[in-house]
């Protein structure tokens, strides 16, 4: 046995990344709802970051723009891509793929989802255009979630076979902003 093979044999199996784990998650048939009565159907917007589906309030999503040049900010975390100029308003770009440890393929088409407006606006690169999500069917259990997002997720939903995470948008980005300030 070669030294390399011995090392491989002795090494622990690496953990799946949260994104990979999430992509393997399939809600069981009998756990698709929490059983607390008739589901209240609400329409929200869903967008994908790698394999992770996130939903936000319909009124929070301001607009979608084509992938525009991002100007980097020195000495900031890799997930803060920089700033874009949105009609004279400088908007920070949070690369959630980088934050969640998901590799980006250079060839992939991206859009910028602009969330909130004015001084509160932020941009999130997304693959594919957001879609309307009917979040009436709540999952009884949460799937594996990337660590930075975990404290901010309220619930998960299943819509047309895909899992979508409902999260505290403001709390999540406030926490990220706090990391930058530190």
């Amino acid at each position, binding site marked *: 046995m070669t030294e390399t093979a011995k090392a491989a044999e002795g090494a622990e199996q690496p953990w799946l990344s949260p994104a990979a784990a999430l992509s393997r998650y399939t809600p069981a048939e009998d756990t698709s709802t929490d059983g607390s009565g008739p589901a209240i159907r609400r329409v929200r*917007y869903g967008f994908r970051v790698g394999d992770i589906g996130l939903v936000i309030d*319909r*009124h929070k999503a*301001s*607009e*979608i*723009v*084509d992938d525009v040049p991002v100007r980097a900010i020195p000495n900031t975390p890799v997930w803060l891509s920089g700033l874009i100029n949105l*009609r004279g308003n400088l908007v920070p770009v949070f690369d959630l793929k980088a934050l969640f440890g998901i590799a980006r393929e250079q060839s992939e088409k991206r*859009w910028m989802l602009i969330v909130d*407006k004015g001084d509160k606006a932020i941009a999130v690169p997304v693959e594919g*255009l*957001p*879609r*309307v999500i009917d979040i009436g069917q709540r999952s009884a259990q949460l799937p594996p979630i990337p660590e930075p997002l975990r404290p901010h997720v309220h619930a998960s939903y299943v819509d047309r076979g895909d899992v979508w995470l409902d999260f505290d948008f403001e709390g999540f980005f406030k926490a990220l902003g706090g990391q930058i300030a530190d």
Partner: protein
Amino acid sequence: MAINKVLICDDAAVDRTNLENILSAAGCTVITTTNGKEACEKAKSEKPDIIFLDIIMPEMDGYETCRVLRDDPETSQIPVVFVTSKNQKADRVWAQMQGGADLVPKPYSDEEIVEQLKKA
């Protein structure tokens, strides 16, 4: 559907007047507003047959205005046509997701605007 009453919302006076001239010449009664909040109020009180809505406006932009109109049972059925300088594929998809019937990119011809009256 015969279009008699039209609501225009645009913060730019030149664009507003231009649209007003085109639609008046087409025989419509035109109501003009300069911001999204005013447009929502007028839509409820005047019950126009169609709304021409700019997107880029301060305070309440056209997308948000359209969402508010769609959420109100009194205005949810009024067709909204976005009239805007935004004309990327993403803009069209997003406009549709907000409940817009169509999007007319600026600069537009008189015919493109009048065509919207026939579609409604």
